[in-house]
C-alpha cells in the first residue's frame, strides 16, 4: 500500500512538472508579446565599422523618438550567411523581426516580396518625398510590380581592384584598366616572384564576385542584366569568353586561396605579399580601420578591367514585414534611415556611400567622395554574388559551380552547370 502511495505521489509530481512547464512557456509568451512592442532591428552588422554605424543610427533614432524601445538583434557571420538562415526560420514561423536587413534586388523581390511577406512602402516614399532623392534605377531594385518594398541605407561598390602602391611603384607598373593590361602587369609581377592577385575563397562568394566583375567587364552592364532576366542565354559567347578570362586569371592567384577568407586575402595586399585584390569596398574599411593603412598612400584603388563606367551595386535595405505588431514604429525608423541625417550618420562609419543623391560628400573620405561622384553617372549592375541579381537558389548553384570551376577549370562544364541552374532564375 505504502509503495503504491509513493508511486502515486511521484506521478503527481511528474504531472505538476509538466504543467508548470506549460505555464512557464505561456509566461514566456507574454514576455514575447511585450518584446514585440520593441523595435527589433535585425541585421548581420557585427563587424568593426558596420556595428558602429548601426549604433550611430540607433542613437539618432532614439534622439528623435525617445519613447520607442529599440533592440539591436544582429546575428554575426560574413555576408549574412548565418543571419539569413535565422531570418528564414523566423519568417516561415510567422515571427518576423520588426525590420530586417536585406540586399536590394532579387534577394528582396524574388525572395520575401514574392513570398508575400512584405508590406509596400509607397505611402512612406510619398510622405517623405523620396522618389527623386534616390536614383530611379535604385528604386527599381527595391520595387516589384509598381510597389516599393524597402528603404536603401547604403551603397557598396563591388568592382574595385585594391592594389599595393609600393609594389606597383617599385616595379614601375601602372594599375591595369583593360584585361590585356591586367595580364601584362600580372606576368611581370609573376616573373619577379610576387603573387599578382590574392583570392580568399574559403567561402565561394568571393570567387563569384571576381567572376561577376569579369563578366561585366566583358559583356557590359546591359547584357549582364539581361542574363538574369532570362533575355540572354547563359551560354552566350560573351559568358564563355568571360569564363575563359576568369580561368586565365586563376593562374595568377595565391596557391592557398581555399584556406583564406576575404580579410586574409585583402591582408596579403596590405602586407605587400600580393599586388592586387578584387573585393567590394568594405575592404577599404578593413584596410583603414583594422590594418591602419592610408588610402592612396599604402593602397590604391581602381575599377576592375573594363568596368570604368559601371557600378556593381550592393545595397543594404530595410523593409516592413507583414504581421509585425508595431508598423508605425517601424515606419518611424525607416524614415530616419532614409533621411540625409540618418544616411550621413551611418555611412561614414560603415565605409559605404549614401544611397541618397543629396547627402553631404564632405563627410566622406577621399575614396567615398570619388565613389559618390561615380555613383551619379555610372550604369548600375546588381551584384550576383550578393543576391541582388538573381534568386538565392540560383546563386547557391552558381557558387557551387564556381567552387568546382576554381579547381577543375573546365569551361564547358561550368557553362553547362550555369545553363542547368537557369531554371531556378524564374523562381
Amino acid at each position, binding site marked *: 500500500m505504502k509503495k*503504491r502511495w509513493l*508511486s*502515486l505521489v511521484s*506521478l503527481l509530481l*511528474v504531472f505538476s512538472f*509538466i504543467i508548470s512547464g506549460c505555464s512557464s512557456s505561456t509566461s514566456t509568451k507574454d514576455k514575447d508579446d511585450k518584446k514585440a512592442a520593441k523595435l527589433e532591428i535585425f541585421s548581420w552588422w557585427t563587424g568593426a565599422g558596420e556595428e558602429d554605424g548601426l549604433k550611430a543610427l540607433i542613437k539618432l533614432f532614439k534622439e528623435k523618438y525617445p519613447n520607442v524601445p529599440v533592440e539591436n538583434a544582429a546575428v554575426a557571420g560574413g555576408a549574412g*550567411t548565418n543571419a*539569413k*538562415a535565422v531570418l*528564414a*526560420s523566423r*519568417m*516561415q514561423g510567422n515571427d518576423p523581426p520588426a525590420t530586417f536587413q536585406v540586399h536590394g534586388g532579387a534577394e528582396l523581390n524574388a*525572395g*520575401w516580396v*514574392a*513570398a*508575400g*511577406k512584405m508590406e509596400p512602402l509607397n505611402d512612406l516614399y510619398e510622405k517623405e518625398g523620396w522618389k527623386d532623392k534616390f536614383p530611379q534605377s535604385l528604386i527599381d531594385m527595391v520595387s516589384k510590380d509598381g510597389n516599393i518594398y524597402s528603404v536603401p541605407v547604403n551603397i557598396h561598390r563591388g568592382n574595385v581592384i585594391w592594389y599595393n602602391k609600393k609594389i606597383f611603384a617599385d616595379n614601375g607598373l601602372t594599375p591595369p584598366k583593360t584585361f590585356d593590361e591586367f595580364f601584362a602587369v600580372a606576368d611581370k609581377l609573376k616573373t619577379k616572384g610576387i603573387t599578382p592577385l590574392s583570392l580568399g*575563397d*574559403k*567561402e*565561394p562568394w568571393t570567387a563569384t564576385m571576381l567572376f561577376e566583375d569579369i563578366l561585366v567587364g566583358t559583356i557590359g552592364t546591359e547584357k549582364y542584366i539581361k542574363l538574369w532576366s532570362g533575355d540572354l542565354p547563359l551560354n552566350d559567347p560573351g559568358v564563355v569568353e568571360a569564363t575563359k578570362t576568369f580561368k586565365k586569371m586563376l593562374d595568377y592567384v595565391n*596557391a*592557398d*586561396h*581555399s*584556406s583564406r577568407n576575404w580579410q586574409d586575402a585583402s591582408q596579403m595586399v596590405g602586407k605587400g605579399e600580393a599586388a592586387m585584390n578584387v573585393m567590394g569596398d568594405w575592404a577599404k574599411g578593413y584596410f583603414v580601420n583594422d590594418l591602419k593603412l592610408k588610402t592612396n598612400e599604402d593602397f590604391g584603388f581602381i575599377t576592375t578591367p573594363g568596368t570604368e563606367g559601371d557600378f556593381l551595386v550592393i545595397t543594404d535595405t530595410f523593409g516592413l514585414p507583414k504581421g509585425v505588431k508595431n508598423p508605425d514604429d517601424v515606419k518611424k525608423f525607416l524614415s530616419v534611415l532614409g533621411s540625409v541625417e540618418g544616411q550621413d550618420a551611418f555611412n561614414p562609419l560603415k565605409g559605404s556611400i549614401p544611397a541618397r543623391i543629396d547627402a553631404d560628400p564632405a563627410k566622406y573620405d577621399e575614396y567615398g567622395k570619388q565613389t559618390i561622384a561615380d555613383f551619379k553617372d555610372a550604369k548600375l549592375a546588381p551584384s550576383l554574388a550578393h543576391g541582388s541579381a538573381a*534568386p*538565392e*537558389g540560383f*546563386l*547557391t*548553384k552558381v557558387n*557551387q559551380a564556381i*567552387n*568546382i570551376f*576554381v*579547381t*577543375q577549370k573546365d569551361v564547358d562544364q561550368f557553362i553547362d*552547370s550555369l545553363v542547368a541552374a537557369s531554371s531556378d532564375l524564374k*523562381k
Partner: protein
Amino acid sequence: MELNRTEKGSAVLPETKAKRNRKLTTDHLLALCFILPSIVLIAVFVYGFIGWTGYVSMSNWNTLVPDFSFAGLKNYAYLFQDYRFQADLRNTLVFTVLFIAVVVLAGQALAIFLDQKIRGESLFRNIFFFPMALSFVVTGVVWQWLLNPTTGVNLFLKKFGLDSMWYTNTDILAGFKWGKIEFGIPVAIIAVVIAAVWQMTGFSLAMYLAGLRAIPEELKEAARIDGASEFKVYRKVIIPLLRPITVSVIIIMAHISLKIFDLIYAMTGPGANFVTDVPGVYMFETTFRGNYYANGAAIAIIMLLFVAIFIVPYLISSRKGES
C-alpha cells in the same frame, strides 16, 4: 515460462489469481502513466518530425514559399545526379572508414599500453581523454590553424623541406572517374580525419580500458600457465574478448562520422571542389541559403538511412541476445 508456472500453481486458489491479475493491471497502468509522457513526446518530436521530413522531401518545396505538391522521388533523383552530393557520398565513405579504423586501432593500442600498470596511469588517461571534453567546433578551429598551409605546423615542417597543403589540397588519391566525380581518397579529408581522431581516440581508449579491466585475471593466468607467450595471450585471449567493445565503439563512431557537421563546418567548410564537403554541410547550405527545403529534407532522410544501416542490425542482434 515463469508466468505460466505461477498461473498453473495459482489455479488451485482462484481468489489469489484474480487478486494477482488486478494487481498486475494497476501496475501496468501505473507504468503506462509513467511512460506515456515520454512516449507522446518522442512520438511527436522524433518520429512525427521524421515523418514530416520524409513528407517534405517528396514535395516541391524548393523556394521560400512552401509548396507541398507531391514530387515523388524527384529530389532524391536530383541529389544522386548532383556533383556535390556524389562528392559528399565519397567523402563520407572515406572519412568514416579512415576515422573508425584509426580510432579503433589507436584506442585499443593505447588502452593496452596503459593497462601495463605503468606509473602515472591516471595522468596519461586524463591527457588522452581530455580532448573529448572539447566541442567539435573548438577542435575544428584549432586544427584549422594548426594545419593551415601558411601558418601552423607547416612553418615547422618547411624547415625540413616538407611542404604540405593539408586541407587545401585538391588531389584525389587512387582516383578514377565514377559518375560525375573523381572517386578516390581526397587528401584534404585526411586533415579532417586527424582532427577527428585527436578528439575521439580518448573515448575509445576509455571504452577499451574498461573492457580490459573486466577480463578476469584467471583467464590470462590460465593461458600463461598453458605456456602462451605474452603476445599470444593478447592475440588469442584478450583481443577476442574485447570484441563487444569494438562493436560498441564502431557503432558510436559511425553515427558520429556519418552525421558529422560541426567539425567540418568550423575547420574547412565544403572545401575547394568539395573535397571536404559532407551531407550535413550540404543540407545546411542548400536548405538555409538556397531555400531548397525539399532537397535539404531529402538529404536528411538519406543520412538517417545511412545511420540506420549501422544501428538497425545492432539493435536486432542485441534484442536477440536478450531473448
